């Protein structure tokens, strides 16, 4: 019933729908590309879907990351995506990994899936994903965007070329904008991500021409596709394969979500999905009221790391904004993500919360 519109297609049928139900697909990143990939794979009934993303939902994501909403702000993206997808399709298994993809966890994770989809937003992760796909022997559905243009391809499929056959090495630092420094037309990842989901379904179904050995280049301003042929570069793939044993020794060097970030009060969404941390000494006044707060003085921070919630966005404050910045710095160096230092002190925060309370009472 749910999949009727697939089943009545002679090219798919019940047999094809069963293939979809039995498929296991891992999506790297629940961002601009990941959202449409995830929603269409979930809707199509892919039986097991993995989502790995360490990042939390920010207001500026909502311009294009359509699985989220105001209610997801501050939540981990993998967890928030899973929540929305479970409403879309309650008959599939969704696994959320609220952590960073690393050289240490990639291969083992990839081995649990049939197809890997790259929706990441930086070169370092893209090369890590490509190389781990070579080592784990998994096909990779690649998508990437820049302003008004996008690229789609299928790598490492049926002895075909890999991403390194197209671009052998990551670009020189600063030669190509990385991460979220650049703008993007919001609907562009919708088009490119949906095209990635289409390639995934074609791979699962063994249907049509898969973009293996081809790079699709889409231009949203011209509504045009150019498709370029890519040849396999055996030497480049061999180099990756040879370094299999030392693969886990590599370390991700650049990360896109800058770890020490400053946040203003107006940017905070006050809800349960944020952990508020007061790094002042216990005697310092005023106490902040009306929020659930974990009190961890700065000099006790390293002894209390178990109190830090890795799945949540963390907003740290102190008396002036100085100690909170140090605390955010320390946590980020210890590999905690999404630590924000509040730009103002506890006094201002307290006044703000009181005002909000008054407004709500008056409205009530």
């Amino acid at each position, binding site marked *: 019933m749910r999949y009727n519109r697939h089943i009545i297609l002679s090219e798919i049928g019940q047999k094809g729908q069963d293939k979809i139900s039995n498929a296991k697909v891992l999506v790297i*990143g629940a*961002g*601009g*590309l*990941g959202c449409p990939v995830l929603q269409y794979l979930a809707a199509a009934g892919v039986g097991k879907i993995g989502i790995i993303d360490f990042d939390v939902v920010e207001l500026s994501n909502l311009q294009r990351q359509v699985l989220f909403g105001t209610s997801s702000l501050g939540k981990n993206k993998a967890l928030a995506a899973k929540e929305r997808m479970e409403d879309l399709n309650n008959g599939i298994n969704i696994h959320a990994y609220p952590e960073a993809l690393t050289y240490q966890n990639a291969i083992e994770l990839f081995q649990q899936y049939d197809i890997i989809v*790259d*929706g*990441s*937003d*930086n*070169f370092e992760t*893209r090369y890590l994903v490509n190389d781990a796909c070579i080592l784990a022997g998994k096909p990779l559905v690649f*998508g*990437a*965007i*820049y*302003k008004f*243009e*996008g*690229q789609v391809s299928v790598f490492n499929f049926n002895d075909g070329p890999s991403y390194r056959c*197209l*671009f052998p090495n990551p*670009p*020189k630092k600063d*030669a*190509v*904008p*990385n*991460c*979220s420094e*650049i703008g*993007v037309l919001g609907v562009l*990842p919708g088009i490119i991500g949906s095209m990635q989901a289409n390639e995934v379904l074609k791979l699962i179904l063994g249907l049509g021409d898969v973009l293996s050995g081809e*790079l699709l*280049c889409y231009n949203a301003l*011209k509504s045009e596709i*150019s*498709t*370029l*042929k*890519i*040849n396999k570069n055996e030497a480049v793939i061999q180099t990756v394969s040879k370094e299999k044993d030392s693969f886990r020794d590599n370390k991700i060097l650049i990360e896109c979500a800058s770890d020490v970030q400053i946040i203003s009060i107006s940017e905070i969404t006050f809800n349960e999905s944020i952990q508020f941390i007061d790094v002042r000494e216990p005697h310092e006044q005023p106490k902040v009221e009306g929020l659930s707060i974990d009190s961890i003085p700065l000099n006790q921070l390293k002894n209390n790391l178990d109190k830090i919630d890795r799945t949540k966005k963390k907003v740290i404050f102190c008396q002036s904004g100085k100690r909170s910045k140090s605390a955010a710095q320390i946590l980020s160096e210890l590999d905690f993500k999404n630590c924000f230092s509040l730009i103002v002190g506890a006094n201002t925060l307290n006044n703000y919360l009181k005002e909000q309370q008054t407004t709500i009472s008056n409205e009530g």
Partner: protein
Amino acid sequence: MQITIKYFGQIAEVTQKEAEQLEVSKGKISELLNILNSKYDGLKHKDFQIAQNQELVTKETVLTGQEIALLPPFSGG
């Protein structure tokens, strides 16, 4: 011979155009790149691959095609 050159992504920002027609003499693609590098400031600092007639080639490939494309990597997601 007359060729069409197409520029993608960041490369189109350097050249300030998405395509152009050029009259060039026969030779390797590297020779065409020399011409483009002297024509467009900043192009040599960019990373890109080259396609000839919709097929990825190297700088050492002989220029035979009607269409050359300069293709940078994208990282956005």
